[in-house]
């Protein structure tokens, strides 16, 4: 690194710095700026203003290759392509160029990233479930890893708070292990889903099938529009009908008058002042000019994503912290988790042949966890549990399942008409936090700005593999009980990372000797640094995590402002 500009100057000094503008960063920007702090948001990628979604209104015939990218484009996204859906021409521009943004894999790890304002809040699956005490108490009860330093009661009001703003559609179900929230009206199930729900309820105690809880608006909400059932969310929604930083939190932060957002700003490290025992700012590389700039603030929120926040902390080396900021415990970079998925079953139905649905619902059904809830549901060969997401739909030409030798006028007529109903469920399973599942800095492979890169060493272990057998068998069992025919199990395998729920690498805990963050997401040993993205997670539940990041972020912002007022930071 050559010259450092702006060091210590007043114009580079703010009350708060937020690293990243995704789900967590957007919330930090909104909360801190609305509470009166002059807030600088640093985003490593380009700016994207709400509405700046170039493919949102394009039909398939308006893309040169229709639903495909040419080989030349795919060559730059070989890792992003592993999901099978990210490199669609409608969404590929939201995912990184793998050639320019390399990482390494001791064991397969699929790292899906979007470098732009809004980050993956533009791209997420929008499923929004609360953790419960089943999750927060799990590590302590199982004697696994370390205990969460918080319980559901600590987070419940913050779930209320973020749900009221974000807008979550869903149904109230009174399930202790999947707490209800502040819901907008639920989306509808389709005809077959309604019937399957009834049949599963009749045959299985304690396996309710509910409509997915989704951050898609079922009515106008705080100036954002109702979901139009286009199911093109991943391209960006011109109606603002799903929650994203771009449509929701960043406009609110701008409206406060206290937000400065700087795109193309790669945070290389957090600056730690040994004399003060505090972080004083961050060192940024301008992605376009390569200029190195320092910014200063009283509090720093790292919301760059689990992997990127961990990278920044590991790369923030000082005499006090030779192994990375806040890493006295040696746990930084360890305990990497994701959900394991892509296992379940599908079945066909001959019923409801004269019924269909209007629109393409960007949401499915959900079967909450039913294993290891209590003594009666205790499993012999694995801890924790899994939930199912799925849906029923009428098969169309994209899922053509006819024999190859059938072609001609009959095939065409069959594919023009709605095909038979198919019902499918896939399972999302919890994984345990293993110390040896980790990421670390790789000094040998440097990025184009000369920074070290990340190497992953992470794998599923026996608990996850045992659970997967049940995930498959229980899916078959339920679909058969629901009267579906041709029930077929699948286990397509999923490397860690593919679920894009990476978390755990700077975990919260009660003891600085075994964790990185305290109960308010503050670095134990640098309390004016907050980490509120997936890195903070002590265990990963089996539910989708983004809503929990929102709640933890809003709670941490409240703490930061209160501590600032009391001159504790």
């Amino acid at each position, binding site marked *: 690194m050559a010259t450092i500009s702006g060091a210590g100057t007043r114009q580079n000094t703010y009350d708060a710095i937020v690293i990243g503008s995704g789900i967590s960063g957007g919330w930090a920007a909104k909360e801190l700026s609305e509470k009166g702090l002059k807030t600088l948001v640093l985003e490593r990628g380009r700016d994207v203003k709400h509405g700046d979604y170039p493919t949102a209104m394009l039909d*398939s*015939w308006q893309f040169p290759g229709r*639903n495909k990218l040419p080989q030349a484009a795919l060559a730059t996204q070989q890792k992003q392509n592993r999901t099978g859906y990210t490199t669609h021409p409608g969404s590929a521009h939201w995912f990184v160029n793998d050639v320019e943004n390399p990482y390494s894999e001791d064991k397969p790890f699929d790292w899906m990233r979007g470098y732009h304002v809004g980050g993956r809040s533009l791209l997420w699956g929008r499923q929004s479930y609360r953790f419960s005490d089943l999750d927060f108490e799990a590590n302590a009860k199982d004697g696994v890893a370390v205990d969460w330093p918080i319980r559901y009661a600590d987070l419940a009001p913050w779930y209320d708070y973020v749900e009221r703003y974000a807008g979550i559609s869903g149904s109230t179900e009174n399930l202790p292990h999947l707490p209800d929230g502040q819901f907008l009206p639920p989306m*509808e199930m389709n005809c077959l889903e309604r019937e399957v729900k009834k049949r599963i309820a009749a045959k299985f105690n304690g396996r309710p099938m509910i409509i997915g809880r989704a951050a898609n608006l079922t009515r106008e909400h705080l100036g954002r529009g109702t979901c139009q059932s286009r199911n093109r969310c991943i391209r960006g929604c011109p109606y603002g009908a799903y929650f994203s930083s771009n449509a929701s939190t960043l406009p609110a932060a701008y409206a406060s008058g206290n937000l400065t957002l700087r795109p193309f700003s790669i945070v290389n490290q957090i600056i730690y002042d040994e004399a003060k025992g505090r972080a004083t700012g961050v060192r940024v590389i301008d992605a376009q000019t390569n200029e190195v700039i320092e910014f200063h603030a009283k509090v720093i929120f790292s919301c760059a994503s689990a992997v990127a926040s961990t990278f920044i902390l590991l790369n923030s080396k000082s005499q006090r912290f030779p192994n990375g900021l806040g890493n006295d415990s040696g746990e930084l970079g360890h305990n990497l988790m994701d959900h394991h998925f892509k296992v379940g079953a599908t079945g066909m139905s001959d019923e409801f042949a004269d019924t269909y649905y209007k*629109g393409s619902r960007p949401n499915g059904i959900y079967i909450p966890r039913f294993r290891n809830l209590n003594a009666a549901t205790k499993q012999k060969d694995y801890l924790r549990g899994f939930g199912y997401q799925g849906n029923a739909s009428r098969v169309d030409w994209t899922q053509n399942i006819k024999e190859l*030798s059938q*072609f001609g006028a009959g095939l065409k007529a069959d594919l023009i*008409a*709605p095909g038979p109903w198919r019902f499918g469920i896939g399972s999302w399973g919890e994984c345990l936090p293993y110390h040896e599942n980790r990421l670390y800095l790789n000094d040998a492979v440097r990025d184009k700005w000369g920074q070290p890169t990340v190497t992953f060493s992470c794998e599923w272990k026996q608990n996850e593999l045992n659970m997967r057998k049940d995930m498959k068998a229980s899916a078959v069992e339920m679909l058969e009980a629901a009267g579906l025919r041709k029930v077929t199990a699948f286990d397509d395998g999923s490397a860690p990372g593919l679920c894009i729920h990476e978390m755990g690498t700077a975990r919260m805990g009660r003891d600085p000797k075994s964790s990185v963050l305290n109960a308010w997401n503050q670095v134990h040993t640098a309390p004016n640094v907050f980490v509120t993205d997936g890195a903070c997670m002590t265990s990963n539940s089996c539910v989708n995590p983004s809503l929990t990041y929102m709640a933890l972020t809003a709670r941490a912002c409240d703490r930061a402002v209160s501590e600032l007022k009391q001159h504790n930071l």
Partner: protein
Amino acid sequence: MSLNFSPATNDPQAIGRREALKRTALLLGAALSPSILAGALRAQVPATGAAKPVYLTAAEFATVVAAAERILPRTDTPGAADVGVPAFIDLMVGEYLTPAEKKTFLAGLAEVETASAQAHRRAFSQLVPVEQDTLLKRIATAAEGKQGTFFHLLREATLAGYFTSETVGKTVTHYDPIPGPFQGCIPMSQVGNVAWTR
């Protein structure tokens, strides 16, 4: 265009799926012909008829035109050649298939021509439809149970090129890019008994 019909009697659960499909086809025919379908065909035929391949040879392209049209032939709805599928396949071969897929595809086209020459001493495109069908069916049957064969690639590209075309998307399947609030359970007749445009 709108594809809303109110068929007098439409109870497919009672009449069975095959009959329902037949009715659907009849209804479509009624809805699309003559003026709209003819208009769509007029708009498409000159373009594809005159289309020159960019990546395939003229002979290869002629095989593709004929084969795609047998997979999805013109009936009361447009056929593959009517909606530019051959040009789409040409582009797929040139820029979208992997090198291995491209090799498989070109070898498959050559095999079609060899088989045609052996059996009929004519190019595949010069055969009558029933001869073309027999030849393609033999290739398809041999490919059954395998993955990524020439016929898989041909069929997939034909279906994709057809159903993602503007003509089919707007006049054959049900086009409504902004459906509004999701309705879970409606009579199929409300969308003209055809699938949603994807």
